[in-house]
């Protein structure tokens, strides 16, 4: 036990001497969480729509004002048609509205392959009705009386008649992740980076292999098992430190309510074991430190994407979601959703924890096998 702890301590010190590791463990996830929170922080209650208006008349101008105040669309102004079309094709805006001079029809543009044109059309039509009251009334009356008289009468009427209003209310509660953008950014970046760092730890292990550290432990009275448990403990401790920093930041700076602390703690510990074991496995099979890094970064990113740490798996199709659930990331994200949004405790995430524990045990066994084989055969 003491020998294992001593090993863990040495590994821990070595880790803190490595500036890249420090950067990607602590600084990068914090920077990413901040950026994601700040860049995608807008509410999801409005559809982003691009607006193009070269020479709008008075009616067009009031339509633009109405759209800017609309509850349904979030209007961004464009001056260049090419830019608007670009963003529509990319889907960064749901569609475009072109308001020409009064008298010409307003155009609503959507992407060829997308659906949802009807939503924008309905919204723009409703806004058109809202700004048309005066014009339509004047137009109707001026058939019978002079225009000036019609205008005066309509303006009088507009001041007298109380409005027809719309009152909206929402049922149920908004969940924490929708209310607080950081509440989804923190756990997803945490799952992404704990795993990525775990994998990056492989590089140091390959170096140790090249220095024949593992063979030498066979000569000590403690043997390989003690050394490997110390090594594993240090990896888990680093992952736990990283988790503590990001979760602490989430609670203290962004006021996230993470829910049941016991469930959070168990989830974080099991996941840390998975990340540490995955790194030790890669460290046991990669040939050079460079190769370990060359595999670790893309593997961390790909598994993170598949597992729903870069976007929620609820937005992808059923097939991609099923493929995603071959990764521990997806099960961990499911558990976070249930803890944060549904207030689940340990019992609520039992299935996810069982699967994650399976990953942890399996990966640890593989890592011990790979490093043990290396120690015995020198390969």
């Amino acid at each position: 036990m003491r020998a294992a702890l001593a090993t863990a301590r040495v590994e821990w010190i070595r880790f803190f001497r490595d500036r890249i590791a420090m950067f990607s463990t602590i600084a990068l996830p914090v920077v990413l969480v901040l950026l994601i929170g700040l860049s995608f922080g807008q509410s999801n209650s409005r559809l982003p729509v691009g607006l193009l208006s070269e020479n709008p008349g008075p009616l067009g101008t009031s339509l633009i004002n109405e759209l800017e105040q609309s509850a349904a669309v979030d209007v961004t102004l464009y001056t260049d048609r090419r830019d608007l079309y670009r963003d529509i094709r990319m889907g960064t805006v749901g569609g475009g509205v072109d308001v020409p001079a009064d008298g010409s029809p307003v155009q609503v543009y959507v992407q060829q392959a997308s659906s949802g044109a009807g939503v924008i059309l309905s919204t723009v039509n409703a806004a058109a009705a809202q700004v048309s009251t005066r014009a339509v009334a004047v137009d109707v009356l001026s058939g019978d009386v002079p225009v000036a008289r019609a205008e005066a009468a309509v303006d009088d009427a507009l001041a007298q008649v109380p409005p027809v209003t719309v009152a909206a209310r929402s049922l149920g509660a908004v969940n924490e992740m929708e209310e607080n953008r950081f509440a989804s950014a923190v756990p997803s970046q945490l799952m992404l980076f704990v795993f990525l760092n775990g994998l990056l730890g492989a590089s140091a292990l390959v170096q140790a292999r090249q220095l024949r550290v593992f063979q030498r432990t066979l000569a000590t009275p403690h043997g390989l098992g003690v050394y490997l448990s110390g090594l594993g403990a240090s990896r888990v401790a680093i992952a736990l430190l990283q988790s503590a920093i990001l979760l602490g930041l989430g609670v203290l700076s962004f006021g996230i309510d993470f829910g049941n602390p016991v469930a959070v703690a168990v989830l974080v510990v099991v996941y840390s074991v998975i990340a540490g074991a995955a790194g030790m496995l890669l460290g046991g099979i990669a040939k050079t430190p460079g190769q370990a890094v060359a595999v670790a970064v893309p593997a961390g990113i790909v598994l993170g994407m598949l597992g729903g740490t870069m976007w929620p798996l609820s937005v992808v199709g059923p097939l991609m979601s099923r493929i995603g659930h071959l990764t521990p990331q997806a099960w961990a994200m499911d558990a976070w959703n249930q803890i944060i949004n549904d207030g689940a405790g340990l019992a609520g995430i039992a299935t996810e924890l069982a699967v994650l524990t399976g990953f942890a045990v399996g990966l640890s066994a593989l890592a011990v096998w790979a490093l043990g084989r290396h120690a015995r055969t020198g390969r």
Partner: protein
Amino acid sequence: MWRTTWLIAALGLRRSLRDRSILIQALVAPIVIALVVGAAFGSGFSLNVTIGIADADRSEISTQIAKGLVGSGGDGIAFSAVGDPQSVEAAVESGSYDAVVVMPAGLGEAVLAGEAAQLDVVGAATDPLATSVAQAVAGGVAAELQTARVTAVAANQAGVEDVTASIQKAVASPPAITVEQGEVDGTFSVMAYFAPGMAMLFLFFIIGDGARSIVAERKQGTLPRILAAPVSPTSVLLGKTAQVMVVGVLSMTAVWLITWLGFGADWGDPVGVFVVIVAAVTAIAGISLLITGFARTENQADALTTIVALLFAVAGGTFFLGATGVLNTMRLFTPNGLALSAFVDLSAAQSGLAGVMPQVLLLLAIGIGTATAGLLALRNKVLS
């Protein structure tokens, strides 16, 4: 001199092509990542909203409104009547409707009497967009009612003879603004964004390794021996630079051709794409040479390259498509963000080479500037 430069570049190239780590980072990683993103988001933007219309008023006016709305819908939006207007909340909670527009009892009377009237919208907190859309639709209905009311009052005031005819005319009139639907032609593959983005991230690692080999060879004593031969330090440095440039351009071009011809991701005008690739590789190579030139040790250069690469990737938008806010402004201050904006102009805006010249020139300026400073610093190191 050019012969030695070429020999050094060719030797370095041969070594790079044999290195499996380079193959993973230069080809496999960006293509696999782009395919994953493509599989996740290949179908483009989609939105489907079902809005219920609940008529609790059952007056002539409310019946007419409901009739007008139900079945009007369109692409991505559908309206249907709610059978029992008393159980609107249950219908929303069960998910039968994303949101419901309710015409409460007494609406028709209030409208005719010229009194304040109100339409209700009921939605689910978990689907705020549907609620907002229903709210906008209800706003349109409210505006039509208001038009009829205002016309009635104004017709009386102006002394129009047949007030009822005026109201009917007002109700039948289309809005003063007509709305038409157009379509933006051409499609965009998310792969044409993530493949170059990821390729540039990994290029930092690959090119950084190549640039650092100069420092490593000096430490191993290879470099002094080369310099003992009639070879100038300049040709050694130029050879290395040519090597990293060729590796960079080859790998990005391969990623482009494979995602384009193999997986149908159109990056846009081929001439423009190739020029942007060369400009982006120049900038990344320049920055790598600068880092290597000014770092004190090989380890320091390695650490700085990783940190710079990841920071640029994050700030340049490598991981996100369509960020707004800070990220959207920041990306143009990074070389990969600049290059990505050029790639997007080529693929999504369908620009030609001329359209991306500003980014190309900026990237080349960054590349040549940083490479010159880096090479001068490296030359001093080589000679020392």
